[in-house]
């Protein structure tokens, strides 16, 4: 050890101790890396096998191909199922967002008798197991001799999405500074104009988030859909029923594409949100 390099005030720590100290301090970061890897394993697997030259059954790796990505509707029923899921998702999102936003404003903005009961009502669907939601709706439809299918599925999806919309929008409303609306009225905007020009634009991101959430919940739903869709296939149903005989690689393509699309949307939203805060 060269003495002229050694500062009297810097303690000398042996390398071994240094490494174990580093691990101790960063233990939780290392854990996070492992946890994220674990989260992504099935995603990576799905993505990898979307390139499998597999034919009907995608169980064993046969070879790399871009065919599946070039021809995602190649396997029968994949695109029908996807189209159904998107249609149902869109309608369910539309209705649940409108109904849920109205409820969120009522509960979040006004104090009235029955407010706490309303909160409970919203909590109930979230606390009910999906199987009970699905089965009970099916029972009701059967009583009225309505066959399971497209519209019963949309209705079922709206039922379980409303609560999530309410919670999301309510949170956004709660963070709204009431003085902004007072300022608007102070500056000659009446109630309607205040809502249109100040309240709504500021709550809009919450509503957008709620809509996105509702769509993802609807698109990915299996249990409730299974009970109420009859012979109509949705994407998750398609995967479930073809799991036994082999899921075509095109399903992997769609799954991966959904993943990247959703990731892109969320990241774009984050970047746009961040740009708003940075000085021009």
């Amino acid at each position, binding site marked *: 050890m060269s003495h002229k390099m050694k500062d009297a005030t810097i303690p000398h720590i042996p390398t071994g101790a240094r490494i174990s100290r580093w691990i101790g301090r960063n233990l939780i970061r290392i854990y*996070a890396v492992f946890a994220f890897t674990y989260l992504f394993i*099935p995603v990576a697997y799905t993505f990898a096998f979307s390139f499998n030259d597999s034919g009907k059954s995608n169980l*064993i790796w046969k070879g790399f191909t871009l065919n599946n990505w070039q021809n995602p509707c190649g396997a029968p029923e994949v695109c029908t199922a996807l189209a159904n899921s998107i249609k149902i998702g869109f309608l369910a999102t539309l209705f649940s967002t409108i109904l849920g936003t109205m409820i969120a404003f009522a509960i979040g903005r006004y104090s009235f008798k029955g407010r706490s009961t309303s909160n409970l009502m919203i909590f109930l669907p979230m606390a009910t197991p999906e199987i009970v939601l699905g089965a009970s709706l099916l029972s009701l439809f059967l009583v009225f001799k309505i066959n399971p299918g497209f519209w019963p599925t949309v209705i079922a999806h709206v039922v379980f999405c409303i609560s999530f919309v309410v919670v999301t929008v309510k949170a956004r409303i709660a963070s709204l500074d009431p003085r902004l609306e007072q300022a608007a009225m102070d500056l000659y905007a009446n109630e309607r104009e205040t809502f249109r020009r100040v309240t709504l634009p500021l709550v809009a991101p919450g509503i957008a988030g709620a809509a996105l959430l509702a769509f*993802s919940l609807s698109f990915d739903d299996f249990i409730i859909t299974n009970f109420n869709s009859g012979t109509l296939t949705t994407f998750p149903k398609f995967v479930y029923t073809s799991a036994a005989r082999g899921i075509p690689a095109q399903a992997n393509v769609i*799954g991966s594409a*959904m*993943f990247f699309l959703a990731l892109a949307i969320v990241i774009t939203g984050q970047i746009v949100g961040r740009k708003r805060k940075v000085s021009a």
Partner: protein
Amino acid sequence: MGKIRTPYLLLLPGFGFLFTFFILPIINLAQTSTQTPVGGGDTGQYEQTLRFSNYIDAFVENKEQFGRSFVYALIATILALAIAYPLAYAIAFKGGKLKNFMLVLVVAPFFTSFLLRTVAWKQILGEEGFVVPTLRNLGIISDSTTLTSTSFAVVMGMTYNFLPFMTLPLYASIDRIDPRTLEASGDLYANGFTTFRKVTLPLSMPGVVAGTLLTFIPAAGDYVNAAILGSPNTKMIGNVIESRYFKIVDYPTAAALSFTLMAVILILVTVYVRKAGTEELV
């Protein structure tokens, strides 16, 4: 003035919808649960006989599956908590500028279809995957052990699939903790572990309660993980209810089972929430 009526007008469509398509169905389910098949009628024809013994029959016949469902759900919840807590902690305290991005990463895998993910696990843990052969080569498991069609796989699938429901509320709660309270704890002679036990953990309790509820409730009623990753030996109550609707048509039993499931969950949740002391969940 319109001011008093406005909240009720806003609530009317939404609650009207929920009443028709949530409350009524549940009521209908209740009245289905006490019916019996019409003697001499076709399958699927029932009459109301207020046969409350349906419940007892249903429960006794399926007590194994009931028990299994709650055990699996409990184990999955505990595992999810164990995995998610350090992760949420890492993001909240070590995330820095990348916090939001890391949260997106937690949720992102769930943009791939839930079924695709579960089927992927089935194949990863199956004979053709890379896990089993590797473990066999390392001698950790014997050549005859399989990982799929086991309760291990089912619980593992459940834990994995409900992870974001556990992580996000945990994160929300942990993120609210002012790091200076942890510093204050250290200043007052508490070491790392004691600080965690006496400061961090209690302050993060609302998140723990919310996360465990959001995980346990759907887990108890789940049947997809059991169907894909399990075997007839791992049947959960959800599987039973599903088959009573679609395979063996027996609506009263299915209804009775559904209600029992809901009732048990409700009781467990109420006891748990009372004990943990959280009021505002929504």
